[in-house]
């Protein structure tokens, strides 16, 4: 049985990797209808595999389907981390915390909605939008005077966020009371209909991403100015504090429905393949376009040499912050997708030790390689969560601990042998750096100087 299972798992992993490469290849075609056709085909293939029985069972069992959603959310988290660590050279352990923040925020919004309370959506939605406006506005004002110390800027942002938060709680509460009759008695109203709930789900995931991004802005603003390894420790501290807050979400934080350390139950399971796939494609496109933009090139130049980048007139602090915020946004979206697939959130899921998963994925897939990260996420989830969990479960209760013994060893060996990542930095299809860029930097896609694919990021630099 085990050999058969091993064989089918490997087959599934190979099929998924081929599917990813096909998707990226198709997205890289020139004509718009080719891209659209690719997306439809890529969606349809998996959807068919999920629905159509193959022999006496589906090609993807329910278990595999869960793995698929987990892989999608892990891809987003890892892409965000790759943006921060791989492309920008900032070693962050906070990614898992932002993932958790996204998961909890999205879950809270839909949980409240499912229980006939619109305040989650309105408060979070208004808060996120107003906070974004406030942050941009304060940033504009602060930019008029150069050389403002980071602590002062931070103070201004915090004051703005607190004011906005009070407004959002007040306005959201009023609006929620206004629409409360729309839910009807016993969930029969218009607002409780499945279509509306789906819209709320999508909104909740986006809000979760934006919320994580805004938190990461406030956190990153002072912390990104620290040195590289101090930044690592501070982000580790962030992950620990976020988990502490999750454990005490019903005592320190005013969210009794999150139930603190017991874990949040009763989250509507709304993640469907179409939603997960759509979010995945959107995230890939966003990150890829960011990297190919001028801001993205500035981001990469900061990784290569901060001093030289500054000499070229690049806003070093700004581009670090940009990458950090975008990476956290993506992680928050991943968290939202995950929360609505699993339906149960426990603070233990978001312990900083589990935060090693995306780090290993990024190192495996190659620092600064999006293709590698996406492929490695799928392989990692299917291999470890699927295959290893099934096999190791038969080995005894020690198995989960053994996994965490093997993680660090893997990481140690990778650091000793190939600090730039196992699969190197080769990009594929859609993610290939375009021809003009390659000509400027004078190399092919796999050449060391290619902008999307420099080798040994951070490895050249003592401090990055």
């Amino acid at each position, binding site marked *: 049985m085990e050999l058969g299972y091993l064989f089918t798992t490997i087959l599934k992993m190979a099929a998924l990797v081929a599917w990813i490469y096909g998707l990226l290849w198709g997205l890289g075609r020139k004509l718009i209808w080719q891209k659209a056709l690719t997306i439809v085909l890529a969606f349809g293939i998996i959807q068919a595999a999920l629905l159509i029985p193959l022999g006496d069972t589906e090609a993807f069992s329910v278990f595999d389907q869960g793995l698929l959603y987990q892989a999608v959310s892990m891809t987003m988290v890892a892409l965000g981390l790759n943006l921060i660590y791989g492309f920008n050279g900032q070693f962050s352990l906070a990614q898992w915390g932002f993932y958790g923040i996204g998961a909890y925020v999205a879950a809270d919004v839909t949980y409240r909605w499912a229980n006939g309370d619109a305040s989650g959506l309105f408060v979070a939605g208004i808060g996120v939008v107003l906070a974004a406006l406030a942050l941009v506005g304060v940033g504009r004002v602060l930019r008029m005077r150069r050389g403002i110390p980071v*602590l*002062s800027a*931070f*103070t201004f942002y915090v004051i703005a966020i607190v004011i906005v938060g009070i407004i959002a709680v007040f306005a959201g509460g009023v609006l929620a009371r206004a629409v409360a009759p729309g839910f009807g008695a016993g969930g029969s109203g218009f607002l409780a209909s499945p279509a509306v709930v789906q819209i709320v789900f999508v909104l909740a995931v986006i809000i979760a991403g934006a919320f994580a991004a805004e938190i990461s802005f406030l956190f990153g603003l002072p912390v990104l100015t620290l040195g590289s390894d101090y930044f690592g*420790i*501070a982000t580790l501290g962030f992950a620990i504090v976020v988990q502490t807050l999750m454990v005490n979400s019903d005592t320190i934080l005013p969210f009794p429905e999150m139930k603190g350390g017991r874990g949040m139950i009763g989250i509507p399971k709304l993640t469907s393949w179409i939603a997960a796939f759509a979010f995945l494609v959107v995230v890939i496109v966003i990150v890829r376009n960011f990297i190919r933009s001028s801001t993205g090139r500035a981001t990469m130049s900061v990784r290569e040499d901060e001093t030289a980048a500054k000499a070229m007139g690049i806003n070093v602090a700004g581009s670090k912050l940009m990458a950090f915020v975008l990476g956290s946004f993506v992680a928050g979206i991943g968290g939202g997708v995950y929360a609505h697939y699993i339906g149960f959130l426990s603070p233990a899921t978001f312990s900083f030790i589990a935060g090693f998963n995306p780090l290993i994925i990024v190192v495996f897939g190659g620092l600064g390689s999006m293709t590698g990260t996406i492929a490695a996420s799928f392989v990692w989830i299917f291999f470890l969560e699927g295959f290893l969990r099934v096999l190791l479960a038969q080995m005894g209760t020690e198995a989960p601990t053994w996994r965490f*013994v093997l993680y660090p060893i893997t990481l140690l060996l990778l650091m*000793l042998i190939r600090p730039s990542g196992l699969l190197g930095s080769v990009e594929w299809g859609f993610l290939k750096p375009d021809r003009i860029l390659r000509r400027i930097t004078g190399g092919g896609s796999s050449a060391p100087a290619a902008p999307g694919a420099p080798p040994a990021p951070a490895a050249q630099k003592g401090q990055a």
Partner: protein
Amino acid sequence: MPEKTDLPAALSGTARRRRPPLAWVGNGFLIIVALLAAYILVSNLARSPMVFLQNVLDGLKLGCVYALIALGYTMVYGIVKLINFAHGDVFMVGAFASFYSVSQFNLHQWPQMLFPAIPPGLSIVIGSLTVILLSMVVCTLLAVTIERVAYKPLREAPRIAALITAIGVSFFLEFFGALQFVFSPRFIPYKSPFDQTAWYIQDGIHPIVAGQDIPDNTITFSNIFLIILVAAVVVQLFLQFLVRRTKIGVAMRAASFDKPTARLMGINVDRVISFTFAIGAAFAGLGGVLYAIAYASIWTQLGILPGLKAFVAAVLGGIGSLPGAFVGALIMGQAESLTMAYISTPMRDAVAFTILIIVLLVKPTGIFGEPAGEKA
């Protein structure tokens, strides 16, 4: 060299003339936070001075344990510029080593078993010292092995690769220790090598007898508190002596100042680095034993948070400075103890990282740190 002396003066002159705009906002923010903390502390001090003093003593105990760990961090960082993340887990291994030597092998009773005529007090002292020394040796060996296997190949590698390696080593120790046949993943009640006695202060010092109520408004302390206090101070003095007066201390300072030049001067830098790891680990082992005796419960992830807080303490005191590590650790102990008592118990960890961020923003060199020019 006139131009060399002129340049910094000119730079500092311009820096003094052109202060950054709106700096007062950030400073004001910090001052408000500090005033708020001071208000909480003073109001609680006024309400019940004895309870406050008791919390300060608890913080002192915690701070002295942190001081023992922080010494290793600060020395290693001073020389190899590496955050030795596994240091906290070496601390944990020290606690476990003493646990096994006490509960499995009864090592703390060996003088009495070999020489029944020996007075019991002396036997306990010798036995406990043996247990502590054994833990220190185990930790030393472990740290030197880690240094040789994991850190040495990465000495020329970027700092982030070394940091990831250090975190990897740390997790490996934690989860390898959590395997059933190693340490087991559970919390283990710790069996102390000597009996703890406690006293309370009320018109003089009285011992606490089992079954007797402690009067209100008194301060209690135990023998382990005194031992930790003495150990931290003695270790601090010993290391000061080692670093300032001995040959290896001179070599350590030279290596931390300039490794290539130290090598040219005939110093075996690799051996100095190994020695630094070893001596830091030995005192982490001592700290582990004392921590386990004081808090009476051990598990394999015991070392993560004390390790991180000790690192923050080292940064706060000025990384690379021995008295800085001591003072920083005492401050961290007070911060944690008073936060637990008067603000919020679960947020005791958050305070440590907040202090880290504030220190790095306001005074990155720490309290005793030299304004290092060669910031790598």
